């Protein structure tokens, strides 16, 4: 199955809050095939850009255009994992069942696939813990499970592994790579350059709200065009 959503074209898109520009103007295209990683310093606008693509932020100017014309389709086929996990005030299990029940999946079936997904992210045993009690990492895992359970075509991940332990990070990365093989398109942010190197197919580099690069990963690692990017990459501790 091949995603019908990408390529996504951003045309002079700008997000601003009370006269402060958070992102843009950005004009670029995010194409199908392999994860696109958005990197850049804190406050560069990574989260905002993801939210803009997902439709959580309105473009003050310019626009975001998906390949898929039907906007409802576009919405339905995406999942977003937030940087600060949002937990419903329910059990971990019910958190994962929730999006399914919205889509009218029968209870039993929903529960089954929810449990399966919870196991895959390594939360087996915490099904009945209240989501708001979960530890930082557990919450992040649960958010990922909730995002994947609806089998989206496009997965937007905002620093999904920020507070995961090594084991968990590997599991999640494996999950992501598997998803890619299944034809799921992925756009994610990370501060872990190791992770970027391992997963990225394309790199988008943001700096102070401006998009400085959107290139094929290898090229980017070899020699970044902008010297902000160069300094950012050299700044790395490997």
């Amino acid at each position, binding site marked *: 199955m091949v995603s019908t959503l990408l390529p996504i074209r951003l045309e002079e898109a700008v997000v601003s809050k009370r006269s402060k520009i958070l992102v843009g103007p950005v004009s670029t295209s995010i194409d199908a095939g392999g994860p696109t990683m958005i990197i850049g310093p804190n406050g560069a606008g990574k989260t905002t850009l993801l939210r803009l693509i*997902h439709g959580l932020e309105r473009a003050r100017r310019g626009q975001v255009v998906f390949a898929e014309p039907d906007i409802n389709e576009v919405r339905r086929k995406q*999942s977003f994992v*937030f940087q600060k996990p*949002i937990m*419903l*005030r329910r059990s971990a299990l019910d958190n994962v069942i*929730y999006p399914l029940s*919205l889509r009218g999946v029968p209870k039993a079936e929903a529960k089954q696939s929810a449990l399966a997904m919870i196991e895959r992210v390594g939360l087996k045993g915490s099904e009945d813990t209240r989501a708001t009690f979960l530890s930082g990492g557990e919450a992040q895992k649960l958010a990922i499970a909730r995002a994947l359970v609806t089998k989206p075509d496009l997965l937007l991940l905002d620093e999904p592994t920020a507070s995961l332990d090594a084991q968990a990070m590997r599991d999640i990365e494996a999950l992501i790579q598997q998803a890619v093989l299944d034809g799921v398109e992925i756009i994610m942010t990370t501060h872990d350059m190791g992770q970027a190197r391992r997963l990225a197919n394309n790199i988008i580099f943001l700096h102070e709200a401006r998009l400085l690069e959107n290139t094929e990963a290898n090229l980017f690692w070899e020699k970044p065009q902008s010297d902000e990017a160069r300094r950012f990459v050299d700044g790395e501790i490997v």
Partner: protein
Amino acid sequence: MADILAALSQAFWLLVSFDADLMEIVWRSLSVTVSAVVIASLIGLPFGAWIAVRRFRFRRYVIAIINAFMGLPPVVVGLVVYILLSRSGPFGVLNLLFTPTAMVIAQVIIILPILISITHQSIRDLWANYHDLLISIGTSRWQRVVTLLFDARRALLTAVLAGFGRAIGEVGAIMIVGGNIDHVTRVLTTAIALETGKGDFSLALALGIVLIIIAVVLNLLIHTISKTEREGTW
């Protein structure tokens, strides 16, 4: 002061002796108020949640007006309902005037604003938490309302209880539309007003004490059942 002491003992005796008349009006008070609260909740809770999630243009004005309507004087509500239900009024044929039903209608109108207002407020806070997620998952507006009402159910108790309180203690409106007819539409508050008019303050107070006791018991009951304010519940 003598009145107050007299009232206390009188209230005590009324209760322990299960005074028949008292039981009758207590029962009527409860059935009228509870019906009103149930109906108002069915309308008010979803509506309150709806204003919280919906960002329409005149939102602030709607909210301001609802807050203002918390100030609807019961007497005025009573008058309007009276006019509507009276023989010469549009709903005269229903012949509802001076029946408990009329009292329920009046009370629903009186408590709706406070129900909506408190609901809106507590939902708004939860909505701030859930907003991104619910939008992202692509919930319909109605699904959002249901989800929020469900997850905020504990907080909504305050709204419902506030409504109950306002209704059980109200007298101005139900006096007009109910008529405080003995054995038909007389409830605790109208009886209190009557005794006050008679100058029998201690009996009036005694009835008031009974009313408060009922309210307290009921609140304790609900709090206990719903386990609010317990460590670690939401």
